[in-house]
């Protein structure tokens, strides 16, 4: 079991209790015991014995007349000594008890003062601690209540200023990101729309020329131009469809199902084009995910691999699991991805392939993250690419 330090407040309380206990022990040992020891020593220095010896030595040498008077005088001296010893004893008892009263009273006062100062010092600290935690969790709207009498008020004011500054900066950042996203999208849209327009315009110009010159092959040209226009319109439709999918990814409808079986079903049609090897784990737990969206993910990744195919191309699909996750590895020996592009491939509209929309991998990443999973890619030019997918295991009772 890991030892965990108590909280700041508990540490202060323990420290003060230790201080008080130590002070009490010190006070008792140093003052009371020392005083007691002194008094015991002084009592032993009684003159009683000396007086008795004095009486015994001189009593018989005195006349009968003075003996009684001498005895009374000596006894009076001895009695006074004894009374002083008793008075001292009573006094010490009183002092000891009164010291206890005073010590108790002082302890109570110290504890009260401690709790008052503790309240003024640590309560703002606790608020600051909670606020910092909130800040760390991303809640920038957190604001610590100011305590005018607290010595930490300056710190609280600075914290609140910092929080406001962060909040303001985040708003600016979000706005900047939004602007950048809109600019990117406008640029991509313009580009993607402009691309098919050029061949359409050129084809139409060619058709006009043929028509104006009453060309004999007008029919052939017309047919070719129509074909080009159809193709470009198809491209535009594909782009519009992918864009729409990315923009409005439907809400996931997860169920428990066998992912190994789904992988086999999805890859079956591709086996006519490419060699696919399966290394599927036995007793793999059921995946809890939206079956249609996962199909979209696997389709995309397999299709991506096929697009990067070269000679003797093959794909290996591997499944395994840990206590908490189901992992799917899709590995190919294709061309690979350039190292500088690796970090960009999941960004929307990033593509290196001709006719690609650049939305496929962005959709893949978004689907996996929506399921609480993750995707990683490793690639080397000329060697191949590995996509590692990980989905959390959700037991039926947790669901």
């Amino acid at each position: 079991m890991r030892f965990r330090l108590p909280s700041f407040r508990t540490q202060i309380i323990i420290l003060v209790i230790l201080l008080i206990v130590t002070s009490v022990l010190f006070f008792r040992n140093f003052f009371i015991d020392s005083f007691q020891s002194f008094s015991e020593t002084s009592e032993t220095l009684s003159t009683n014995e000396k007086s008795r010896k004095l009486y015994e030595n001189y009593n018989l040498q005195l006349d009968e007349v003075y003996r009684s008077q001498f005895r009374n005088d000596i006894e009076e001296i001895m009695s006074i000594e004894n009374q002083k010893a008793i008075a001292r004893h009573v006094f010490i008892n009183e002092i000891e008890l009164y010291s206890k009263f005073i010590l108790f009273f002082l302890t109570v006062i110290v504890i009260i003062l401690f709790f008052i100062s503790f309240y003024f010092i640590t309560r703002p600290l606790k608020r600051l601690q909670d606020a910092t935690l909130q800040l760390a969790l991303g809640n920038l709207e957190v604001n610590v209540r100011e305590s005018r009498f607290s010595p930490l008020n300056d710190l609280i004011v600075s914290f609140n200023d910092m929080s406001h500054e962060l909040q303001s900066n985040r708003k600016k950042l979000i706005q900047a990101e939004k602007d950048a996203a809109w600019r990117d999208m406008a640029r991509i849209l313009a580009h993607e729309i402009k691309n098919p327009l050029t061949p359409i315009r050129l084809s139409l110009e060619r058709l006009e020329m043929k028509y104006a010159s009453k060309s004999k092959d007008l029919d052939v040209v017309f047919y070719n131009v129509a074909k080009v226009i159809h193709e470009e319109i198809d491209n535009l439709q594909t782009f519009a469809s992918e864009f729409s999918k990315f923009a409005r990814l439907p809400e996931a409808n997860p169920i428990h199902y066998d992912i190994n079986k789904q992988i086999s079903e999805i890859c079956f049609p591709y086996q006519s084009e490419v060699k696919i090897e399966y290394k599927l784990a036995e007793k793999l737990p059921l995946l809890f995910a939206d079956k249609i969206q996962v199909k979209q993910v696997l389709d995309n990744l397999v299709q991506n691999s096929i697009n990067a195919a070269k000679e003797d191309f093959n794909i290996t699909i591997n499944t395994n699991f840990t206590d908490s996750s189901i992992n799917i590895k899709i590995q190919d020996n294709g061309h690979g991805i350039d190292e500088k592009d690796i970090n960009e491939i999941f960004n929307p509209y990033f593509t290196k392939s001709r006719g690609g929309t650049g939305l496929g991998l962005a959709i893949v990443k978004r689907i996996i993250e929506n399921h609480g999973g993750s995707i990683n890619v490793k690639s080397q030019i000329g060697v191949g690419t590995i996509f590692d997918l990980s989905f959390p295991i959700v037991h039926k009772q947790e669901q």
Partner: protein
Amino acid sequence: METGFLAAFSKKVISTIIAVGSMFYSTINGVTPSMSTPEIQFQNDDLFISTTIDNCYTEELNQIFYSGNIIPLYFSVELYQDNKKNPDSTFIFYHALQYSPIGNDFTIYYSERDEAISSLNIDQAKVLFPQIINYRATSATSINNNINYYLKITAWLDKIHLEGMKEELNLLFYWNSIKPNSASTIFSKSDFQI
């Protein structure tokens, strides 16, 4: 001036603390004494009583006995009619204990019979000091016919002065400020063997 004010203030505070503390706790560990029921004896027209006090010594009281000071123990014997609150008569006497440091022995003086017993060791002194033996409490001539009476005996320790102490030490604190008392059985004039 400031020092004077601080001294006075601290004295006031500490006195208050001590006063408040003393309400809950005392420096003296006392005992709770009890007086045994008086035995009454009728001889001719006189009534004699005997009693003693139990559980009346503490370690500190013993030390005070050894001081050489005269330690007085007072008794009051009150004659009550059975149905009245106020006594018909009250007699007060005392026993005085004194230690002789040279003789290392104790002497007890009984004022009720003007008699002293000397050369007692501490154990003998502690037995005899609280004892009342055959004290003539009343006589048949002092009581009326057809009325029931009883005797109430009360004992208490007094304050003594100890050398070196500003104030007198109240020995009754060693009895937790309790004055032990006890009442005799009821008697009447007919009980006297006149």
